[in-house]
């Protein structure tokens, strides 16, 4: 069974972003970029499935500008066998990404597609579910455990009240939550080897998908700043402030 993993190039999660002065967008010039953390978990899960003999081949896919090849090379260094880039400089929304991924799914016929649950830039949490809808597959979102068993997969999902396990027939879509696994680091020899692994480049036009979106970004503003508070010297002072100044306890 082939496993397809979708990886997105995003701002490094440690970077605190700034909004552009003209409020047209966030400012990403000279900002450190990385693989979306949830995608790292997706790659790790796919590679573990291969190590267990469940997956025969792991294919990483990314949609984005030329530079997102860096993240595909990272995926290859972490153990993916080959990569596909859908090259576009246009901003692509989740629906367009899902449509492009659906085309790749059609070509590659994977048994399982693993995505992150959420990209940390757009905070959309949509793409996996949309891909599942477009391909008619079942979906196991926010996964903290994935067990492939013959023709089906059991996915344990992190839900508001606890955990839920669903059984999906294959092929299926899984999106990763943080506790699914702890991603490994790429070792130097693997990074060298990754440079020689195949990386195919396609375009949305070749795949016959339009990336036009009906949603426009009107404005991006910084959030309301909190007024700096004070330090209190003791528990007594804290309780007094909460009672008499903030009036949030009685």
């Amino acid at each position: 069974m082939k496993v397809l993993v979708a990886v997105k190039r995003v701002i490094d999660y440690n970077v605190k972003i700034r909004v552009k002065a003209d409020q047209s967008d966030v400012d990403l010039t000279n900002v450190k970029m990385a693989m979306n953390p949830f995608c790292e978990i997706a790659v790790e899960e796919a590679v573990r499935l291969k190590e267990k003999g469940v997956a025969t081949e792991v294919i990483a896919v990314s949609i984005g500008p030329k530079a997102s090849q860096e993240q595909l090379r990272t995926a290859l260094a972490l153990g993916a066998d080959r990569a596909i880039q859908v090259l576009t400089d246009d901003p692509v929304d989740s629906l367009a990404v899902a449509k492009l991924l659906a085309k790749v799914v059609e070509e590659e016929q994977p048994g399982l597609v693993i995505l992150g649950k959420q990209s940390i830039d757009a905070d959309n949490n949509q793409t996996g579910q949309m891909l599942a809808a477009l391909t008619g597959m079942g979906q196991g979102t926010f996964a903290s455990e994935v067990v492939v068993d013959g023709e089906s997969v059991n996915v344990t999902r992190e839900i508001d009240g606890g955990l839920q396990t669903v059984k999906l027939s294959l092929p299926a879509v899984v999106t990763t939550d943080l506790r699914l696994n702890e991603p490994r680091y790429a070792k130097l020899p693997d990074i060298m080897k990754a440079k020689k692994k195949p990386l195919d480049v396609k375009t949305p036009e070749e795949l016959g998908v339009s990336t036009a979106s009906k949603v426009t970004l009107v404005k991006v503003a910084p959030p309301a700043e909190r007024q700096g508070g004070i330090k209190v010297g003791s528990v007594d002072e804290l309780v007094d402030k909460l009672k008499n100044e903030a009036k949030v306890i009685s």
Partner: protein
Amino acid sequence: MSILVIADHHDGQLTGTTANVVAAATAIGGDIDVLVAGEGVAGVAEQAATLAGVTRVRVADNAVYAHQLAENISALVVALVGDYSHVLSGASTTAKNFMPRVAALKDVAQISEIIAVESADTFRRPIYAGNAIATVKSDDVLKVITVRATGFDPVARDGQAAIEAVDVVENAGVSSFVNETLAESERPELGAAKVVISGGRGMGNGENFALLDGIADKLGAAIGASRAAVDAGFVPNDMQVGQTGKIVAPDLYIAVGISGAIQHLAGMKDSKVIVAINKDEDAPIFQVADYGLVGDLFEVLPQLEAKL
């Protein structure tokens, strides 16, 4: 314009957030219907009918909707969506599961976790873990939207909507429910609590979370946690507050032994009053705290419990 709000419910009870979602629908304007899908949900429908501003509650009561499987619920919503201009739901894990599926099946975008309505087609939503607020305009014929409950005050419960059964049965047949383990707690729900006290890695281990219990009892608080505390196995995942956990905005949030990473702040910085207890006076959490107490939590917590 007409809006379909999909009710969030659990254990035969309508969850509080549906009242916030109806408030968002009211801000958009137009007729508001509520869809209750599940098995044995007559009681939920009755509760939904009391939400102010709702015209009609549509009830799809069938075993195929029992566990809110996304494949079946999304198919149901698509079957009912007809002429509605907007479909709204809260941002629970249930809705986050099926709503994007609805959007894709209708070939429209989804707008995730709006915190404000500017007009019927323009909304505000946080991006980059809440470090920026985007205003987005949608020209889609159908707007599929999830609503962050903390952005809207709930509507009153003095309405009297009509209740109607819907006999659409959609079973996609690609997924089935296996089991569920739900945390049992006497405490208020994290999302709905007026006071939340959360512990981080500084708590040291799971047993020490008991130090928060007495305080939570006295304040009627829900107990939350940072991801580090969840990852370390101190407490279960459903307690995680943050960008990728629960978003809370209580009147009082007390962060104990939590450093204040941006991903944690994303989940609590809209709280009315924030208290931080941390032994490191330079911890970033103090930058958002109204009241900071520098000290060892193992000394501070018992004192605090005694003083309340």
